[in-house]
């Protein structure tokens, strides 16, 4: 004869298998990341569809002191490490504006530049192009033109190294100073890992917590609505049902977040080299487990008290909104991670998992605050589980009218059954 933890495990197993077969789960887990990836890759794909063409650009140098090269490579806008679209720009010298205009109208060149005599005073270069037709704009050309101007003005007047420094003044390399005083170079990947990864994790965490505690809410509300709860309660205790559901759906959430993280790591191998910090992973896991327990037990309580699925989702929406606050204030937390508001959000149990992970990405959060937030969350989880299991016992079998808040409050304290 099976007993605890046997029945709890059976409930957990049932919930796990039932949920991962749900269409909503499959959609959230597999299609959703693709959708996100699609959105972030869209701009790159669009720009890739419109590659820069090779062009001829004419110029009239009225100062007579510019040394235009015959052609340059234009790197255009490129994203990530994907192959860059380069185009060749040929420069054609004209003596008279009228010649250039003719060539432009004949389509021999896509635009022409006029460097006026007073260029040294004004710094203005004029670009002429047809109303229709594609030409690199001055904006796109300005980096190349600046380079040409600097080279023309300084060549022969200063030595080569000064010239190079003026052309390309600063390259910043990032170093971390370790505790023992040694320095190590920081790559883009390191910066991304310490900044981007916690935020991505925070996002995934929130989505995963929402979706799996949402499944829990739906499950409880459905079981209550279609009355099967009565059969369940004749076989297992309310706390076995509650624990089993939380374990089963927690496993679903972990599976989901695992798939997502794997996708991030795998997918980012192409876009950005990522190194996952064990610390970040550890805290992500801690916050996931606690955050999930907190929300899931809250959802179970709500599902037990309310009479129908629809009603329960309305009530749950209030708490879901509170939990989404860190996303709404994401920018504030990122730019001002030490502000009292940011600190509050990272301590308040409804918002702390996401807010704290975001702050950890933006700054070095004092360990005391991390511990405080985990401690507060732990206590809250304990309290919510206690309250929810009381509500679970009292209200699972009460159909029809939703009880008044006052009655619920009273029953929470008396725990009547």
């Amino acid at each position, binding site marked *: 004869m099976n007993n605890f933890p046997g029945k709890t495990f*059976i409930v957990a197993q049932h919930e796990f298998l039932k949920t991962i077969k749900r269409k909503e789960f499959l959609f959230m887990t597999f299609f959703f990341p693709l959708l996100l990836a699609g959105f972030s890759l869209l701009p790159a794909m669009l720009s890739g569809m419109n590659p820069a063409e090779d062009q001829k650009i004419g110029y009239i140098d009225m100062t007579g002191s510019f040394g235009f090269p015959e052609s340059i490579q234009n790197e255009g806008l490129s994203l990530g490490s994907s192959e860059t679209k380069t185009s060749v720009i040929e420069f054609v010298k004209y003596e008279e504006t009228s010649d250039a205009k003719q060539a432009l109208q004949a389509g021999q060149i896509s635009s022409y530049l006029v460097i006026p005599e007073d260029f040294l005073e004004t710094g203005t270069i004029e670009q002429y192009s047809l109303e229709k037709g594609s030409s690199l704009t001055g904006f796109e050309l300005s980096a190349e033109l600046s380079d040409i101007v600097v080279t023309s003005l300084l060549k022969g007047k200063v030595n080569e190294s000064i010239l190079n420094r003026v052309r390309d003044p600063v390259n910043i390399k990032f170093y971390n100073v370790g505790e023992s005083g040694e320095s190590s170079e920081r790559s883009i990947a390191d910066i991304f890992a310490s900044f981007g990864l916690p935020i991505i994790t925070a996002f995934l965490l929130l989505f995963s917590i929402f979706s799996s505690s949402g499944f829990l809410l739906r499950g409880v509300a459905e079981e209550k609505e279609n009355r*099967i709860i009565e059969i*369940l309660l*004749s076989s*297992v205790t309310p706390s076995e049902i509650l624990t089993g559901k939380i374990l089963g759906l927690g496993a679903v959430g972990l599976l989901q977040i695992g798939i997502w993280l794997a996708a991030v790591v795998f997918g980012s191998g192409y876009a950005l080299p990522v190194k996952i910090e064990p610390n970040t992973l550890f805290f992500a896991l801690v916050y996931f487990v606690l955050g999930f327990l907190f929300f899931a037990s809250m959802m179970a309580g709500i599902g037990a008290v309310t009479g129908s699925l629809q009603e329960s989702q309305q009530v749950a929406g209030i708490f879901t909104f509170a939990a989404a606050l860190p996303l709404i204030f994401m920018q504030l937390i990122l730019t001002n991670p030490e502000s009292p508001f940011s600190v509050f959000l990272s301590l308040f149990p409804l918002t702390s998992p996401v807010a704290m992970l975001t702050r950890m990405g933006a700054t070095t959060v004092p360990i005391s605050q991390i511990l405080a937030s985990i401690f507060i969350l732990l206590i809250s989880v304990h309290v919510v589980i206690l309250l929810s299991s009381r509500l679970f016992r009292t209200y699972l*079998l009460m159909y029809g009218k939703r009880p008044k808040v006052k009655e619920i409050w009273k029953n929470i304290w008396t725990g009547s059954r």
Partner: protein
Amino acid sequence: MHIVEFENVSKSFSEKNILEDISFSVRQGEIFGLLGPNGAGKTTLIRLLLDIIRPDSGEIRVFGDFLNPVAKNRIGYLPEERGLYRKTGLLDMLVYLAQLKGMSKKQAHLNAEFLLKSLELDQYKNKKVEELSKGMQQKIQFLSAIIHEPELVILDEPFSGLDPVSTKTVMARILELKAAGKTIILSTHMMEQAQTLCDRILMLNKGRRVLYGPVDDIRRERGKNSLIVEFAEKGDLNAIRKISSIKKVIEHGKSVEIFPEEGISAQTLLEELVQKANLLRFEKTFPSLNEIFIETLESTSNE
């Protein structure tokens, strides 16, 4: 042996008494009727029995002990509010419910397959409940109460919403369970079925015990001491009227109801009748459970 014992059990919700000082016991192998109008407290009593809710006072023993999780496995329950997972396959659901009753997955599978086959439902075993007809769903619900081979089966209003054919089928199933040695608690307000099936009954009204005991005893105690008689020839009735020990005769169309004088039993009167007339049919009258039910409710409601 007593399978279920209630001793002075009371339960209230929000200061409203649902059950007051209820005592009764259920014997092994009997069909025990739990009767009463809607709102009498029948479902609350069952939930107390199943330890879904706890009593305010009094003691409840099941299988001779306070209900523990293992004992719960020996009980099958068909709730009044029917419920099944709508989107789960039949077989999977039955197996899950049996597993929750402590049965191994393998055995649960075997039982589910067997039961579905016996009801000719095996071709639907991978269908979802919502795809089945209402009648089939009711059969599945019944199966879910007995799949784990319980010793005590609690059926809360098993006939509600059933057509006469299905009612007959369910009655046959209940008798099969009894023949197999199971104890059955049958909660219903269908008195005809209760009278046919139940060995003993407990009748509740407004949370109180108003009748308790063997069905036959209850009916006999409330017997009206009269005879229902049908004569072969019409003329016999006039001869009968002259018998001195008859107090009153009431004609009911083809048959007549005859009441003996005080101190004379229906049995003595019958002997006299047989000598004087050609009887086609006679029976000693007992009130039906239905009559007792209505009478009891009326008398207890006026208190």
